[in-house]
């Protein structure tokens, strides 16, 4: 048996018997080159054979297409000595129209036309690289969107592993004393962290809510939780929604709501104090009604504000100052000088002020301060003001009492 094909079997001895023997002889150089030429010519990848100076000796049709040039044009031209570190290198293949393709280059030493040569294989990977670039850009775009959000965002897969986080989340971790950021970064187990630690996760109570969203039992899960920090307690709103897409998972956002919480708390306190002021106004109005003189006297004596506005303004100013001093005395735990208050009582008495006028002054002073003071200070004003008003009424009563006694003493005996 003989085969003229590249190959290898040249003779077969003992055609029909068990002693059959095949002798394989190495192909001749020319046959090997013919084989190589046949393989390279039909290779789907571009193939260029260059000599040791980098001059083109052969190129296949795939290489012509890749370079967009005719073989005859390139034959004998210097392509270059190919350098590959490792198995392959990537190069840009330039085309006459100015476009270029990206090719993966491999190099093998061969013998070509009796001389040492290099077989350069060029595989067009332009599409793959473009796809990789597009994918990378899409991922970068997604990360940019996540990083543009001020909320802390964590994305989990269906096992509860973190698959994406944003910068705000990592910053939040750093600010709250987490030194090992890997524990809250991609790859970490959020569910496990929830089970053991409340920090940054919302705690164990959140775990069931997240599992419900993941299982599709809930469209959304949200809760508020507090976190003790070095700067005091902070409040956060956690909201978890399913990941919309082919991959199952959850998107969790943590929003710092401490300021909103504080504002709501202050508004509630302020409302409570306003209610206290209104209650006090009602009480004092009742006291005023009880202390009114007879209808005849009342008709003769209109309010101090109407009769003597300058006296009223001065008394309001003095009372306000004494109220501020009373608050300072409360803070510094010092005694408020009652002499000033007694003098104010006598001053008001000289203007024939009534308890109703004192209440008027007191309420006006409190109102002025309520507009400018935080709730806690306003509460202190209200508490101190009550004591101050009572003391002032006492001084006014004493003044009128001493005046009445003096009047009686100065009357002639027959009256």
């Amino acid at each position, binding site marked *: 048996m003989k085969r003229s094909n590249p190959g290898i079997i040249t003779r077969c001895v003992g055609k029909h018997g068990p002693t059959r023997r095949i002798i394989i002889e190495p192909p001749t150089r020319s046959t090997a080159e013919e084989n190589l030429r046949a393989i390279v010519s039909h290779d789907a990848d571009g193939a260029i054979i260059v000599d040791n100076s980098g001059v083109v000796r052969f190129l296949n049709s795939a290489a012509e297409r890749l370079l967009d040039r005719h073989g005859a044009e390139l034959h004998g031209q*210097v*392509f270059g000595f190919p*350098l590959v570190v490792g198995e392959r290198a990537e*190069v*840009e293949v330039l085309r006459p129209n100015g476009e270029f393709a990206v090719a993966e280059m491999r190099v093998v030493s061969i013998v070509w036309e009796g001389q040492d040569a290099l077989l350069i294989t060029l595989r067009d990977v332009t599409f793959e690289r473009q796809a990789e670039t597009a994918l990378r850009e899409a991922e970068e775009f997604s990360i940019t969107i996540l990083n543009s959000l001020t909320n802390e965002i964590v994305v989990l897969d269906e096992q509860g592993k973190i698959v994406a986080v944003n910068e705000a989340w990592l910053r939040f971790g750093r600010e709250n004393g987490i030194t090992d950021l890997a524990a809250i970064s991609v790859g970490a187990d959020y569910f496990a962290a929830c089970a053991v630690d409340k920090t940054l996760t919302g705690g164990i109570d959140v775990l069931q809510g997240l599992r419900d969203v993941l299982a599709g039992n809930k469209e959304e899960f949200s809760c508020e939780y507090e976190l003790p920090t070095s700067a005091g307690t902070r409040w956060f709103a956690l909201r978890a929604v399913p990941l919309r897409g082919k991959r199952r998972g959850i998107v969790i956002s943590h929003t710092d709501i401490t300021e909103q919480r504080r504002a709501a708390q202050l508004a509630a306190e302020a409302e409570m104090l306003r209610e206290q002021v209104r209650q006090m106004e009602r009480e004092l109005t009742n006291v005023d009604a009880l202390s009114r003189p007879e209808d005849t006297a009342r008709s003769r004596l209109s309010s101090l504000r109407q009769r003597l506005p300058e006296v009223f303004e001065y008394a309001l100013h003095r009372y306000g100052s004494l109220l501020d001093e009373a608050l300072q005395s409360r803070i510094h735990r010092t005694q408020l000088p009652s002499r000033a208050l007694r003098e104010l009582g006598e001053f008001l008495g000289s203007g024939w002020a009534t308890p109703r006028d004192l209440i008027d002054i007191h309420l006006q002073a409190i109102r002025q301060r309520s507009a400018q003071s935080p709730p806690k200070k306003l509460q202190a004003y209200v508490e101190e003001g009550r004591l101050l008003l009572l003391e002032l009424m006492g001084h006014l009563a004493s003044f009128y009492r001493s005046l009445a006694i003096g009047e009686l003493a100065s009357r002639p005996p027959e009256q």
Partner: protein
Amino acid sequence: MSKIVLHLYIAGHTPRAERAINTLRQMLEHDLAGYECELTIIDVLADPQQAEDQKILATPTLIKSSPPPYRRIIGDLSSVADLLNVLNLPPKTGSSMINKE
């Protein structure tokens, strides 16, 4: 030895191109510092005519036009040792370099 004249052809500032530039700078500043060297970097996207004139078929391509023999290298230019070997330039330290872009 006469002045070493090198031309590097790149297609935009890709990571491949940056790697080639860094390797060449390192080679010229350290291994070939004892020679007078001139390196010119040509971006074929900015100057396609020069690439066509020189029949540049792929990038990165490094051409050594002086001293003889003429050498043209294509591919991974990240190994100084391989470059020196293919360029047939024995290392020599301690001189200056002219860099053109």
